[in-house]
């Protein structure tokens, strides 16, 4: 018995030693890399809670790169990927970003999902002047020359949404509910401006901890609030519990629809479409967009991830097309250098799966087409309203920015305009 234990102990210590030695040596060994001149970083969470979404963004990015490589690469060179795991933790995001930039000397990184992750990596990109392609819809109020934002900003999700709810659905009293962090709070701010403009009002503006899944009292409040529509900025896995509780408390989307800004195909599939039928979401991209290009995209994605039931969604589409925007910029500039890419990417257009997109020449955000969908029993959105063309991104719309009065331009943020506003 004692011999056995000692053996086990020895085995364990050997294992431990074996595990420890290579990492200890790692910083001192410079592995010889097959140095492709075109290297990019991919930084999403593959572990931790946020991997439920970020894994799909990572897959879409890798799929775009493999398609580019299959078609001959960029400037005749195969794109080499250095991938890292953000682990759903801003600390890790920050560390891996600096690994990609400082250690691996990579000029451009695709990645990021939450605002917290973007904020944690931003200083790394700005201090070393590298480019970060960020595919997620976010709250705006940012004007970094080191980030290309390919997701929607509030005006691209809300400028048609609120007027449409008020005019077409005839709703006048909103209950605003969101997860307790910056994106929902900022969205609610823009919503309120638009509600005022359209002659509607809000009866409540409530927040729940991110990841909270006990919706009993909140839904009860909604029921008793006298509102006629719910504007939901609820994020992540809370969404599923929310819609289920909603139906289970006997509320129907026909009378009191949830109009959401974050609920995507992923959450609908997870909750079961029967809970969402009749509710609305505003996004620039839906899986249901009925064009051959999009259908082909969905099929390619499903084949790529080897899952015949996989769904696509807005951030995923952005994660995919932003790689092509980068490719075009590199080819235009004939260089992968951050400066060159930044200048070349301004004004780039691309025929994305969901329609044409364009990087704004001023603020490096992306022109997207706002769309409103009503969820159907098959888990797909039926597009009930759409802009005829992509609209200009306005990251400072909550502070009075308009198409003709830009705060964020290629020269940077115009502080005077923001100051006048305060």
């Amino acid at each position, binding site marked *: 018995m004692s011999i056995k234990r000692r053996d086990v102990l020895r085995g364990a210590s050997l294992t431990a030693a074996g595990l420890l030695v290579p990492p200890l040596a790692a910083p001192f060994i410079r592995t010889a890399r097959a140095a492709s001149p075109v290297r990019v970083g991919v930084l999403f969470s593959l572990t931790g809670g946020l991997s*439920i979404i970020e894994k799909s963004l990572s897959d879409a990015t890798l799929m775009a790169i493999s398609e580019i490589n299959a078609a001959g690469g960029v400037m005749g060179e195969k794109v080499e990927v250095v991938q890292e795991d953000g682990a759903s933790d801003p600390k890790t995001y920050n560390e891996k970003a600096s690994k990609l930039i400082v250690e691996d000397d990579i000029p451009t990184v695709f990645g990021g999902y939450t605002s917290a992750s973007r904020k944690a990596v931003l200083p790394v990109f700005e201090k070393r002047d590298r480019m970060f392609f960020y595919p997620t819809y976010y709250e705006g109020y940012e004007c970094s020359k080191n980030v290309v934002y390919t997701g929607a900003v509030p005006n691209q999700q809300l400028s048609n949404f609120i007027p449409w709810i008020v005019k077409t659905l005839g709703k006048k009293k909103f209950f605003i509910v969101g997860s307790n962090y910056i994106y929902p709070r900022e969205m609610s701010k823009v919503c309120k401006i638009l509600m005022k403009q359209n002659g509607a009002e809000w009866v409540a503006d409530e927040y729940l901890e991110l990841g909270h899944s*006990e919706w009993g009292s909140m839904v*009860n409040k909604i029921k008793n609030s006298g509102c006629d529509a719910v504007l939901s900025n609820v994020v992540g896995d809370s969404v599923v519990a929310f819609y289920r509780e909603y139906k289970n408390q006997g509320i129907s989307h026909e009378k009191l629809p949830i109009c959401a800004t974050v609920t995507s195909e992923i959450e609908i599939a997870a909750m079961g479409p029967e809970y969402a039928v009749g509710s609305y979401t505003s996004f620039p991209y839906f899986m249901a967009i009925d064009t051959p290009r999009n259908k082909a995209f969905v099929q390619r994605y499903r084949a790529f991830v080897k899952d015949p039931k996989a769904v696509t969604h807005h951030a995923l589409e952005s994660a995919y097309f932003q790689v092509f925007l980068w490719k075009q910029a590199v080819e235009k500039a004939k260089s992968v250098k951050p400066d060159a890419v930044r200048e070349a990417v301004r004004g780039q257009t691309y025929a994305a799966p969901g329609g044409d997109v364009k990087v704004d020449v001023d603020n490096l955000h992306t022109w997207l087409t706002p769309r409103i969908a009503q969820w159907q029993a098959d888990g797909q959105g039926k597009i009930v309203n759409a802009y005829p063309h992509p609209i200009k991104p306005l990251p400072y719309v909550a502070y009075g920015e308009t198409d003709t009065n830009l705060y964020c331009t290629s020269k940077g943020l115009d502080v005077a305009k923001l100051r006048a506003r305060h």
Partner: protein
Amino acid sequence: MLEIIFIGLSVGSILLLVALGLAITYGAMGVINMAHGEMVMLGAYTTVMAGIWLHLGFLASIPLAFVVTALVGLAIERVVVRRLYGRLLDTLLATWGIAILLQQAVRLEFGLSFFGKHIRGLGPGLQNVTVPPALTGAIMVGGEDVNVYRLFIIGVTAALTALTWFIMYRTDIGIQVRAIMRNPRMAAACGVNVQRINALTFAYGSGLAGIAGVMMSGFKTVFPDMGTSMVVDGFLVVVVGGVGSLLGAVFSAGLLGQVDGSVASLTNDVLARAVVFGLVILIIVIRPTGLFSFKGR
């Protein structure tokens, strides 16, 4: 008012559902099982997988989830926990490691994703569980809409609590478990097969977590990390109730549920959480042994 009480009751029953298994493994066995939340998660995934691969309905998954998680619990007890009895805080650390392993196992589809193989129902994404229509929506009770699913959860929790009470206080095995709780050596001297009873107890506690998982899958989201926050709430309930006291767990789950529900209804959910945490701290400071307690090992 009635609505608020119902919400509180329902929050309490959900807390109790998770805490019940912990009250057994921690209270009776002195094992801080941080992987308990992952047992809930496995129960939920059992429901998902049973639906996809065996075409089993939601209700039929309940016994299946119990068996699956009980077996996993048994394996954990055999391989890890058994060596750690009496080292309370070490059980916490080791089971924390197990929790990470289980999460990753589900996320990586037990390693198959490395070979490009995918199993539907596993992986990092959100999963869907179909709830029978009879358990969705609301019924009218006394002029109020009452959430059927929550009624169902309250019923299941009550039944499981009664069953657990019966096992603990009215069967031979229960007597042996309680003997071990009070003095394992003495129990062994009296002919109780301590190893066997410990293994069974741990398996039963894990099985209860599995059933909790089925219940959760019907109204929360199923994903690999879903259990992490639940285990914390569960521990707060058990410690506030008094370690080793089933009645204490029931009482404290009810108390914390009502406090959470009513504060959330009157003000907001964030404040409700804060008040619950504050209350827990206060209760432990005033009564370190919990609301109901006896001296155990």
